[in-house]
């Protein structure tokens, strides 16, 4: 298999196939746990391991896909811009909520990593994990973290957030849709936002804004902390 798979086309095709299959599975089951990215990562790993295909062969195609990460992150600007009116109307609660949320996130992750005596590189990979994947990965990379661990931590956090969001809203007696949306976005980025959209339009829009604002604040904090 090793010589047949040593082509960029192999990695790209396998990735798209796995992502497509994972999307189908999510539609079928409707489970948050069957997150397409999470499932497709496991699928690709399973294929590579089962057929003993070297990781280097896969990454020839993988690197091509990686190239799109920066442009995709830049396009978050379009998502923020389309909600700029709500941002202007609620700038103070958004700014306060996202600042406190990002600070608590980074601080508590750092403290827990210390408590569990995790290695430095692992801790740096986990600290930005509450923000959207592109920003979290950039932050981890810039400060010596391991990007793939960040990707997985961001995913686990997102799944946790979107599963527990309705429960957390009841537990902390959040009645205001602006507050609910921002809190969901701050703790579980885009995966939480998809849940927030189910709760209501205001919740969804606020959650989407929180992704961008928390991302930026996390980048700024990380410059001083890490």
């Amino acid at each position, binding site marked *: 298999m090793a010589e047949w798979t040593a082509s960029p086309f192999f990695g790209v095709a396998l990735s798209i196939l796995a992502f497509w299959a994972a999307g189908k599975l999510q539609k079928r089951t409707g489970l948050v746990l069957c997150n397409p990215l999470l499932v497709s990562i496991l699928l690709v790993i399973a294929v590579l391991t089962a057929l003993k295909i070297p990781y280097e062969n896969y990454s020839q195609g993988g690197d091509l896909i990686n190239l799109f990460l920066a442009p995709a992150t*830049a*396009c978050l600007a379009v998502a923020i811009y389309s909600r700029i009116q709500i941002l202007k109307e609620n700038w103070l609660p958004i700014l306060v909520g996202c600042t406190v949320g990002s600070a608590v996130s980074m601080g508590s992750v750092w403290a827990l990593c210390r408590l*569990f005596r995790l290695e430095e590189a692992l801790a740096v990979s986990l600290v930005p994990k509450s923000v959207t994947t592109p920003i979290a990965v950039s932050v981890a990379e810039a400060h010596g973290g391991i990007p*793939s*661990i960040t990707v997985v931590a961001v995913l686990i956090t997102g799944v946790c957030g979107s599963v527990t969001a309705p429960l957390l809203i009841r537990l902390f007696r959040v009645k205001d849709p602006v507050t609910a949306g921002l809190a969901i976005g701050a703790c579980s980025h885009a995966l939480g936002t998809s849940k927030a959209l189910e709760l209501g339009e205001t919740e969804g829009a606020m959650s989407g804004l929180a992704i961008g604002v928390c991302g930026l604040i996390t980048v700024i904090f990380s410059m001083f902390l890490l």
Partner: protein
Amino acid sequence: MKILCQVGVIFGVCWVSQILESLLPFAFPASVIGMLVLLLLLITRVLRVEHIQEKSDFLLANMAFFFLPAGVSILNYLEELRSAALALVVICLVTTVLVFAATAFSIRLTLRLMGRGKRHG
């Protein structure tokens, strides 16, 4: 041709932000610089959303897919993770609850203070 131009604009912004990153004296991720540059271009109306609509829709809609190879590369770190897997899951779960509570309470306080300000003013 339309899409080709849109790719050109977005990749151009990314290239410029990589240069900016290398010029900055502190660690600030290039992709986030790209986001800020693009936002600035949109706010100042140098660029309109129509100029990059299709390409940005494509990138945003398929965002998760672009992270697949980054996730798969965890294969190379299984040794490090084996001992830390449980800690990782606990950290993710605990901090999610903490961040939700902290954000919700701080916004509730802000809204309450703002409401009081309005009544007096």
